[in-house]
């Protein structure tokens, strides 16, 4: 029992520390603005980290960029697109998890499509070959015999 209590305390502590360390307090008068802020820091990527968004990163640069998003949104009243463009102009496409289609990313976008096409082609080839095999009358009676034997 005491072990269980200890576990609960440790988990609660960890959760509290995590929340305290990454999320600084920003004041919002407008709940819609607050929702847009959390939406943006959720979708934008921390440039220092390979795969963490601004909301989830503890890196000092993520903190600075959250403050930048807040400033652009609340003080400068910019739109979501303007804020995204602002960060892309300084940090590159990396900050978006959604890479644009260009010469450098063509393989990234087209290879899955190619794999899908190859898959369809294989399935088509496989099924058309299958239908080409017709059983003779003798084979069919043997198959029926095996099936009935199996059922017994």
């Amino acid at each position, binding site marked *: 029992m005491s072990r269980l209590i200890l576990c609960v305390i440790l988990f609660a502590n960890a959760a509290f520390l995590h929340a305290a360390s990454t999320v600084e307090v920003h004041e919002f008068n407008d709940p819609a603005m607050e929702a847009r802020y959390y939406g943006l820091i959720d979708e934008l990527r921390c*440039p*220092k980290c*390979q795969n963490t968004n601004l909301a989830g990163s503890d890196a*000092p*640069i993520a903190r*600075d*960029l959250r403050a*930048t998003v807040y400033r652009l949104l609340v003080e400068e009243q910019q739109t979501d697109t303007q804020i995204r463009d602002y960060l*892309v*102009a*300084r*940090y*590159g496409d*990396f900050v978006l998890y959604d890479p644009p289609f260009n010469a450098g990313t063509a393989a990234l976008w087209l290879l899955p499509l190619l794999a899908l096409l190859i898959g369809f082609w294989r399935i088509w080839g496989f099924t058309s070959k299958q239908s080409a095999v017709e059983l003779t009358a003798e084979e069919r009676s043997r198959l029926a015999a095996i099936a009935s034997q199996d059922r017994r």
Partner: protein
Amino acid sequence: MNRMSFFVPLAIFIVIISVGFVGFRLGDRDVLPSPLIGKPFPGFSAPRLEREDVLVDQSVLTGRPLLVNVWATWCPTCKAEHAFLETLKQREGLEIVGIVYKDDPAAAQRWLDLYGDPYSFNLQDRDGRLGVELGVYGAPESFLLDAAGNIVYKRVGDVNERVWAEELAPRLQQMQSTHREAAGS
């Protein structure tokens, strides 16, 4: 069934492994390509480290090629590259301007007194706003500027002998030759 098709999964496996093998060795994936290359140095207004009451803007960075070095006393790699910046200034005569990034000016001044000062002057970026304008995400970072104040090259990490020989020196040489051509014609 065709006997060769037996080897198709193996072939696909080998292709995937080789793409991964090459891909994971290619370059440094921690370094992001900067969209600022070829663009003018962003506008700013910042106090100097040496004289806090003097605010300067981007015009102090034009007129000659120079290296803008973003550094801080809390950054271990900055300490590692510091001696080489001194070498660059002494040996190559390259002008270096420092940006003290998110640091205490007194600590920065102490550091320069202690380890030597390779910078013509330093700008202060206490809150990291200029850093965001420059797309800085980890000190040290260095920007090579041409005489017109355009960013020609960006280095994330320390500037060392290899970076000088492979990246900085050829670009400076090219700047000089185009400058000479312009003057000659």
